[in-house]
């Protein structure tokens, strides 16, 4: 009888073991090391209690990285949503080449972020980049873009928008397609204005898709690393130093892995916090 109770679960032994080994154990290990002063060069690793967390919370660089991370996330997600929603509404109408354009919009998200970011780095180049050349047509003086303290973060946001808007678009489009056409037709025959139509019917029904897209994008924007590391390295100075960049630097430039793990777990808490806020604030209204 023992066997029949465990039998149905046999399919989960191997996957469970793999996850335990490669995700569960390392996370436990990260939590443990975050309470030590583990340093690869000094070869230490003694228990120091909450010292790493106390250090992070009183470290101006940590708070700076936190601000950069949140600014990057808010800036990129806001623009991606504005464009993604516009595109989704437009391409939910019947028009020529609709299928082709929908597919085309998805192309950027299939590229490796590293490749995309380096192409942009070349395009943003102050001397021979095409971005300055395009701006020169409109008589805008050349900028240093990724090399400028003020423009580096917005430039990175532009790269992120280029690559990730398709994702927001496709989730919102799926949401729009799930709205029964009859609702909108009935209301429009009643003579409702377009804006009223959008506000009273489309938006409330689109809400689950909006939450999904927000959580998805926030999760990825808060961990932003690839495109920053291969373009600015967190610079100039610390202008684009996100939490991910900061923890990589502590870990592999200063070899202070105890502290790096503490910062990494704080980032995870931040991501979970954001997801929880969306779920509470934007909870879908009961139908």
């Amino acid at each position: 009888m023992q066997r029949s109770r465990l039998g149905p679960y046999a399919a989960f032994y191997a996957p469970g073991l793999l996850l335990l080994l490669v995700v569960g154990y390392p996370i436990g290990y990260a939590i443990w090391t975050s309470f030590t002063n583990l340093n690869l060069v000094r070869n230490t690793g003694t228990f120091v209690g909450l010292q790493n967390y106390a250090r992070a919370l009183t470290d101006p660089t940590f708070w700076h990285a936190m601000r950069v991370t949140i600014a990057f996330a808010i800036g990129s997600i806001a623009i991606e949503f504005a464009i993604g929603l516009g595109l989704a509404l437009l391409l939910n109408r019947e028009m020529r080449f609709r299928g082709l354009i929908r597919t085309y919009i998805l192309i950027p998200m299939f590229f490796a972020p590293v490749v995309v970011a380096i192409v942009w780095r070349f395009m943003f180049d102050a001397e021979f980049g095409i971005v300055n050349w395009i701006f020169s047509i409109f008589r805008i003086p050349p900028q240093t873009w990724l090399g400028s303290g003020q423009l580096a973060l917005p430039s990175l946001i532009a790269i992120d928008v280029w690559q990730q808007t398709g994702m927001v678009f496709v989730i919102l489009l799926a949401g729009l397609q799930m709205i029964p056409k009859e609702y909108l037709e009935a209301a429009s025959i009643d003579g409702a204005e377009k804006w009223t139509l959008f506000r009273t019917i489309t938006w409330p029904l689109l809400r689950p898709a909006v939450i999904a897209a927000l959580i998805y994008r926030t999760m990825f924007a808060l961990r932003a690393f690839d495109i920053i590391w291969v373009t600015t390295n967190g610079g100039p100075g610390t202008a684009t130093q996100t939490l991910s960049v900061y923890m990589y630097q502590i870990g592999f430039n200063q070899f202070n892995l105890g502290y790096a793990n503490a910062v990494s777990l704080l980032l995870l808490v931040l991501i979970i916090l954001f997801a929880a806020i969306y779920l509470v604030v934007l909870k879908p209204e009961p139908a």
Partner: protein
Amino acid sequence: MDMAATLAERHPAREQAASRQRKPSLLLILGFVGLGVYLVWTALPILWLVLMSLKNPTQQFENPPLFIFPPTLDNYKAMFSAEYQEAAGIAGLDLPRLLRNSVVAGVVSTALAMALAIPAAHALARQRLRIHGWFIAIMLFTRMLPPLSLALPLFLISRELHVFDSLPLLIIVYAAVNLPFAMYMLIGFFEAVPLEIEEAGMLDGLSRFGCLVRLALPLVLPGLAATAILSIWVTWTDYQFALVLTTQAAVTMPVGISQLVSQYSQLWGVFGAAGIVYAVPVVAFCLIAQRYLVTGLTMGAVKG
């Protein structure tokens, strides 16, 4: 632009409602202008990557930038032949080997993840097990986990176990990271298979495993393909795990590509060629499987 007209043509019944909108509104015109700008903006970096890969070093740094020039294939040759590599000064970056690493890591880790995910997803879809809640929690957690947060402890552990900088390490890590999401996608596909088919199979004397292999799997093949492509795509585009967990032997393309244009080397043309070679197969795959991928990516999103 002739939206309203087309609408009315195709659906005469709606003509009345549409007649108010026959003159395209200002908002719609702006929308289409915006769409045009967006399409150009999307094309620009891709076009630029192609042009970079076809330029020689002098053409590369021309100002104003060159759109029309006699193209060269030297950058592509430099990637694959030893003499060109030497001439281009990238002997240290053996791109064919890195490409092979990427292919092996992507394919083997995906095969492993699928082999483990299929029976588990089938069991979750078909039997009322009490671990469903747990599974969703684990799935969400692994999705939210920043790769670096996992890569840091894995770096320490793999060094102690002497498996640091090895392909098997990368393969196992990628498989584990992809596993929960693959299961999540597959559950959806299995649930769409009518229960009756498998019940009939059981009556004919097939075991649960037999039902899975002989009856359910053939029906979810497109879903399997989409899940596998998504998993390969995650692995193929990964930078953070490869950056932290490899240094020499197991380095993959994204890490190698990024080193082509470091402080020490300015091989923009070779970077362009490598970028194209690396992007084309996966972008093509993703576009072919687009319909399933989008269902997969948004399925969880919109349902959950």
